[in-house]
C-alpha cells in the first residue's frame, strides 16, 4: 500500500468526540460524518482533508468506541493517519474499515507531502524517514482486503 499526500498536522490526544461529535452520530448517512469531521477542533478542517495524510501526536483516537470517527476520516478523503501511538479501539476500527494507520513519530509541516509504503515499511516527511511498526499478520490481511467486511466476504 503506497500513498502520498499533503500533511495535515494535529496535536496529541485527539479524542473521538473531537473527530465526530455525539450530536452527529445518529444517522447512516456517511456524508454527514465526513462533512462534520473535526468540526469542534477546526470548522474549516473537513474541506482540506481530501487526499491528505493526517500527522498527529500520541494517543490519536482516544475515548469512545464510535466507529463513525474512523469512517468520518476516511469518507473525508484522508488516505492515512500517522501518529506515534493510537488508542486501541480506534486502531482496530480504522483497520477494520480499511483506513491505513501508520505508527511513527514523524515531524509535521503543514501542507508538505508525506509519502508512505506500508508493505515496504516506511514513511517519509519533512526530510525524515521512519520505519513503520508492522501490523500483526491478521491486521495486514484485513487491511489488504480493504477492511473486515471485505475480509469476511472472502473468508466467511
Amino acid at each position: 500500500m503506497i500513498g502520498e499526500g499533503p500533511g495535515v498536522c494535529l496535536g496529541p490526544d485527539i479524542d473521538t468526540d473531537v473527530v465526530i461529535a455525539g450530536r452527529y452520530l445518529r444517522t447512516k448517512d456517511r456524508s454527514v460524518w465526513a462533512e462534520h469531521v473535526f468540526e469542534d477542533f477546526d470548522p474549516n478542517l473537513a474541506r482540506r482533508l481530501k487526499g491528505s495524510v493526517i500527522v498527529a501526536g500520541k494517543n490519536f483516537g482516544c475515548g469512545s468506541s464510535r466507529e463513525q470517527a474512523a469512517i468520518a476520516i476516511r469518507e473525508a478523503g484522508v488516505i492515512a493517519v500517522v501518529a506515534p501511538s493510537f488508542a486501541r479501539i480506534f486502531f482496530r476500527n480504522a483497520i477494520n474499515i480499511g483506513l491505513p494507520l501508520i505508527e511513527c513519530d514523524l515531524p509535521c509541516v503543514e501542507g508538505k507531502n508525506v509519502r508512505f509504503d506500508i508493505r515496504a515499511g516506511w514513511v517519509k516527511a519533512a526530510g525524515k524517514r521512519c520505519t513503520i511498526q508492522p501490523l500483526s499478520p491478521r491486521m495486514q490481511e484485513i487491511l489488504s482486503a480493504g477492511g473486515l467486511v471485505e475480509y469476511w466476504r472472502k473468508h466467511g
Partner: protein
Amino acid sequence: MSTLSEQILGGCAGEYVDRAVDRAYVHDGTGVLTLEAWKSIGADRLADASRLYVLFDHIVPANNSTTATLQHELRDFACSSFLNFSDVGGGICHQLMSEGVVRPGEVVVGADSHTCTLGAFGAFATGVGATDMAAIWLTGETWFRVPETIGVHLSGSLQGAAEAKDIALTYVGKLGTDGASYKALEFVGDGAGTLSMDDRLVLCNMAVETGAKAGMFYADSVTVRYLAERDIVVAKQEVEPLTRPGDLEIDLSDIVPVVSVPHRVDTIKTVRDLTGLPLDQVFVGTCTNGRYSDLERFARIVKGKKVAVRTIIVPASRETLARAIRTGVLATLVESGCTIGTPGCGPCLGSHMGVLGEGEVCLSTANRNFRNRMGVGGEIYLSSVATAAASALVGEITEPEVA
C-alpha cells in the same frame, strides 16, 4: 506466574490469540452500524444468539424520527433473531451486564469503550467497534493481543468523604490518558478487598481513560457474595501477586475528594482547591456513578434540603430506579428539587437531553470531560457523588462533609 488476562485469554502477554466470546453486546448507538456491517458481509448466519445482547441506553427514549427509525430497525432484528434485548428504560448496557449476567473468568466484548467496567468481576472485558462486533455476530469469536499488565496495588481503606470515584480519578491522573495504552490494569492488594462491587465497577469503568484495554479485580468473597444474591454460584480466583516495573501503589487512606477539570480526564485537582467555582448544572448518573448506592448516598446528603442549581439524576438501570422508589430514595431526590431521567446514559455524551449551553459549567459524576462533549461551549468537571451532592446544595463546587 501469569496475569489474570493471560489466564483468561490463554496466552502470554504480546501474543495474538483467537478466542470465543462468552458475551457480546451492543447498544442503540453502535448496534445500528453493527447490523449494517453484518448485513454488508452478506451473512445469513449468526453465532449463538444466547450470547449476544442488544441493550438500548444511549438515546432513550428516541429524541426524533431519525433515531426512532434506526432503533426500530435494530429492535426488530434483535427480537426476530432472538438476541437478548433490553428496550428503552431498561438501563445502561454495562450496568445490565453487571446485574447478575457476567461471571468471573468470562471473555466479554462490548461495542462501547466502557465495557472494561465488567472486569470488576474477574472477567476479561473490553470494548470494540461495530465492524469487529459484526464479525463476532458471525463467528462468535475474535482476535486479541494478550495485554501486558500494570498492577495497581491498593493498601489501607478509604477515609472521610473520599469514595471510589476519587480513587479512580486519582489513578487516571497518575497514569495519564495513555499511560496504560494496550495494557490491562489489575487492582490488587489488601485495599482491594475493602471495596464493594459497586466501588470496583467504578475503578474498572475508568480504566479506558488511561488507554487500558481492561481493568480487572480478582473474584473474591465480595464477588462471590454479590453474585450469590443473584442466585449465581461462582468460585474465587487465585491471586498471583506480581510486581512489575511501572506498577502503581495507592494507599486508600491518602485519597481525598478530587475533581477532573476541563478538558482532560487526567487533569486532577483537589475539591478544596476548586471550592467556590460556580455551577450551572449537576449531573449524577452514567456507567460510572448511576447505581443505587450512588443515588442513596446523594439522597442522604440532600435529604430535607433544596438543591441550589439544576440537578439531573439518571438511574443506571430499571433495577436501580425500582429500588430507589421502594426505599424512598427517589422521593427524597425529587423533594430536594432534583430532576429524574429515564434509566440510561442520560446527558453524558450530549446527544439528546441535559445538553449544556455555551459557557455553562457542569459538575458530573460521569467519566469524560472532553471539549464540547455535553454541548458546544460547555465545561465539564468530573467528581464523586458526595462532592456532586454537597456542590448541588450550594451551587458551587463544595467539599463534601465527612459522613
